[in-house]
């Protein structure tokens, strides 16, 4: 091959250049075809995937609906609370971070560690809450150190706010984090882990009304899930407003009247059945639950022998004792067993089938008629009349008054109490009924058990002379546009027919209980209005023998758990009743002395408030 002339001018080499140029062009065309395929043909799919890559929907918790009393007084609200949370993917050294945070917040580092572990089930872009509802001071301290705390953020979240120190806690109930089981159930379909839901009472039963609508935030995140900016936002809508039948001021008065004792008190409007106040003692602080209750706090409440978490108004079951005697008297009159003038001689005890049943008054009441028997709570009179009446008639009358079955409390948790009959005993124990059991049932002891609410319903029916009312605690539910979603109406469950004379005799007896010097309920006496009432002192454990009784009485006092319960039922004003009250002081020993004053103070406050409000509304126009 000669080197003369350019080698590349040879046709064969020229062809090779042409082929190479063509090949390069074809390869580039192929690349462009592929790019076309991605950018034009697959555009919709890949574009959507790029959007899914970078956007996240965050939900914003809605404030729970507020709860008001019957007069529109705010009882429970939602307030913004500072929460210290952490974005996992921004954390460099977890141990170090939790350590510094624990020092700043003055909490145990193990607690923070536990909350971190619990929060790991959330998706990465969701912050893990480490400390809920911290004070502004704490929040500012964390903010100052934010540079040394990478990943720590301060969130503002709605939290339940109890404006009156958690009064009526048992009626309202408490909140708690949603459980795995709840999350799986159909009722909580659109909830997610970490949400707070109503766990008991009103908060539980009215969850659908109270929860509100969550808001949503569409945000842009980077590859680590770090929040870059907000794209869209829909604000959360707070839950609906619930108005109770409770009168906040009366509720406060009932609570403070109770003092440190255990037990329950409930006040009803005798015309409507509205619950005006309900107190259960001891109580608990629902605010502890609002931010997630600590294990030791929970254990202290759950293990307390005095059952602070139980609403004793509806779930405490007590022998009604002498507060039951009006039923016996009314039934006896209806059945023609004993009229008002029916006399029994009380010598302090009554004998049936070889057993002696004592009157509470050791030496007896002597010659006793119905009024006196009620006034001075003569047990012997009722033993004899009750026995004559028979357990089944007695049971029927009591059931008509609402005992022995739930009275229709609108929220969950109501107990039915016990009103025994021959059939009941046969079903329950497969044993025949004994006469002695009728004797003690006649003074509200033995098998008989009633809740304070049942006693209040009974008392209201005695006051209004025949209407057994359905007790009500919810007045209405309203949304934020003023639409009424639920409105409760007074409901008469049963109308009882007794003669006028029968009603009047019982009323007279109850008036004398409180207003006669010989009465057992003089502690409930009021100057402002006539109070009609009945005391009750019911045995907690049956004393088997006198010897045993003596053993128990060490240093002149019976041990607390064996002391009898003190009960008092009352209504006022006696001539034109408006309010009925039932009080149980657990182990209060004397119905008149321990429970009477509580009933008295509730009624007194009721009357005061009525005068005050009348004066106020009089001034306004």
């Amino acid at each position, binding site marked *: *091959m000669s080197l003369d002339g350019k080698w590349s001018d040879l046709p064969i080499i020229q062809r090779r250049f042409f082929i*190479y140029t063509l090949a*390069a062009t074809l390869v580039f065309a192929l*690349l462009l075809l592929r*790019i076309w395929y*991605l*950018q034009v043909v697959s555009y919709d799919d*890949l574009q959507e995937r790029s959007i899914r890559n*970078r956007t996240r929907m965050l939900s914003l918790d809605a404030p729970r609906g507020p709860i008001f009393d019957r007069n529109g007084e705010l009882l429970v609200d939602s307030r913004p609370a500072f929460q210290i949370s952490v974005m996992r993917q921004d954390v460099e050294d977890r141990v170090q971070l939790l350590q510094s945070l624990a020092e700043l917040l003055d909490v145990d580092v193990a607690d923070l560690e536990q909350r971190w572990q619990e929060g790991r089930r959330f998706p990465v872009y969701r912050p893990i809450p480490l400390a809920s509802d911290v004070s502004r001071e704490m929040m500012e301290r964390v903010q100052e150190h934010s540079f040394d705390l990478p990943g720590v953020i301060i969130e503002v979240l709605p939290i339940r706010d109890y404006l009156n120190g958690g009064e009526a806690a048992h009626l309202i109930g408490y909140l708690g984090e949603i459980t795995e089981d709840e999350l799986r159930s159909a009722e909580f379909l659109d909830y997610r882990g970490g949400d707070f839901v109503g766990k008991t009472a009103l908060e539980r039963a009215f969850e659908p009304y109270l929860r509100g609508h969550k808001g949503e935030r569409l945000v842009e995140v980077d590859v680590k899930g770090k929040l870059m900016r907000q794209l869209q936002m829909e604000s959360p809508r707070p839950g609906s407003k619930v108005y109770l039948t409770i009168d906040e001021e009366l509720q406060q008065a009932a609570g403070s009247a109770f003092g440190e004792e255990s037990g329950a008190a409930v006040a009803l409007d005798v015309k409507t059945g509205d619950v005006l106040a309900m107190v259960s003692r001891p109580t608990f602080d629902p605010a502890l639950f609002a931010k997630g209750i600590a294990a030791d706090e929970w254990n202290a409440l759950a293990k307390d022998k005095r059952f602070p978490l139980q609403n004793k108004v509806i779930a405490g079951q007590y022998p009604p004792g002498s507060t039951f005697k009006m039923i016996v008297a009314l039934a006896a009159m209806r059945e023609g067993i004993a009229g008002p003038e029916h006399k029994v001689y009380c010598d302090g005890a009554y004998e049936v089938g070889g057993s002696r049943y004592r009157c509470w008054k050791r030496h007896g009441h002597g010659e006793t008629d119905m009024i006196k028997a009620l006034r001075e709570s003569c047990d012997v009179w009722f033993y004899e009349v009750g026995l004559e009446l028979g357990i089944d008639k007695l049971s029927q009358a009591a059931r008509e008054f609402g005992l022995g079955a739930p009275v229709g409390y609108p929220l969950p948790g109501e107990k039915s109490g016990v009103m025994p009959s021959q059939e009941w005993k046969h079903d329950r124990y497969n044993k025949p009924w004994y006469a002695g059991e009728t004797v003690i049932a006649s003074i509200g002891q033995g098998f008989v058990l009633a809740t304070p609410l049942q006693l209040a319903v009974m008392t209201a029916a005695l006051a209004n002379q025949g209407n057994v009312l359905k007790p009500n605690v919810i007045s209405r539910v309203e949304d934020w546009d003023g639409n009424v979603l639920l409105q409760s109406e007074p409901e008469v469950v049963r109308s009882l027919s007794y003669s006028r004379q029968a009603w009047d005799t019982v009323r007279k007896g109850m008036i004398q209980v409180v207003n006669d010097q010989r009465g057992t309920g003089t502690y409930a006496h009021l100057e402002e209005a006539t109070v009609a009432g009945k005391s009750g002192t019911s045995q907690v454990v049956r004393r088997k023998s006198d010897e045993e009784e003596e053993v128990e009485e060490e240093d002149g006092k019976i041990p607390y758990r064996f002391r009898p319960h003190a009960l008092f039922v009352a209504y006022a004003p006696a001539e034109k009743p408006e309010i009925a009250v039932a009080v149980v002081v657990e182990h209060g020993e004397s119905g008149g002395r321990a429970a009477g004053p509580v009933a008295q103070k509730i009624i007194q406050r009721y009357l005061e408030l009525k005068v005050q409000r009348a004066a106020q509304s009089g001034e306004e126009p």
Partner: protein
Amino acid sequence: MIDRRLIINFDWVLLLIVIALAGVGILNLYSATLSWGAMSAPLYLKQGLWLLGGVLIALFICLFDYRHLEYFATHFYVLSIGMLVFVLTLGHTSMGATRWINLGFFNLQPSEVIKLAVVLVLARIFSRTVTLQGYSFFELWLPAFLILLPVVLILKQPDLGTALMVIFIAGSMLLFAGVRRKTLLALFILGLIAVSAGWFGLHDYQRARVMTFLNPEADPLGSGYHIIQSKIAVGSGGLVGKGFAQGSQSQLSFLPERHTDFAFSVFAEEWGFAGCLVLLTCYLFMIAWGLYIARQASDRFGMFLALGVTAMTFWHIVVNLGMVIGLLPVVGVPLPLFSYGGTSMVTTMIGVGLLMNVSMRRFMF
């Protein structure tokens, strides 16, 4: 040394297209690294300095006649092989592979340098021994040895991508020089045997990359992540793109290695098909211009030199683009003038300098 004809024949077209491409690349780097926040020396500025340095090197290369290089080709080749051996024994290890020599201000990658050395040494051999009949199998022992020696050393690092690049570049030159039909068939069969034997010699990560390339969706968060995110970035760019610095895949860091191997994905996401069409046309023009320079070269050494440099650029572009758009496995080959990196920029600019050198001396004998 420099006479007037050289100035007149200076290849402005090549210089302009190269600077234009590198300029777009720097702009793209600016966008790709925007999310990194303020840095004392932003990458796009560093890349700008590398470009400046690269242009100076290219101009310097134009100062002397490329024909002197024919003499130095062997020395340069031996030196490069030495560096490769040095790297294998004493080099810096990064991500499981040993590839760099630390020169203090900059990490030198001998596997980049060897590509130029192979181009030079093959240009020398082919220009001297080429015939119109083409090479026979036994005439190829020297070129084959000179090609396979660095390939084996690079595979040892291990760096499959660069080893394949060397084979592609050398193959392109050899094919152009001409091989007899039977020899071609024999080489093809040998190649097939080598590939199937090589599969078992591959490192696990290399095999995983090939498998991932075949089915990226099988492991979307692991080794398939790069390809999937890159395809999403390119595809979501659509016809006209999301706009400069507006690509969510790149700005929010879903796209990995976006300043180096996946720089093109950033561009595709933000400029769309329209941008890609223009960019690829520019690259193709650069390749075609390189072939034109080879064709116009005044001697065979110049022709093979220009052809080799053009092949080198071509294969880098094709393998990188093929990789980021999911046509080829992820092998870690930078896109010339676009991916961040001093070695790549300098190697490319040395190549450009050689092309310009050949181009401006096309009328000189």
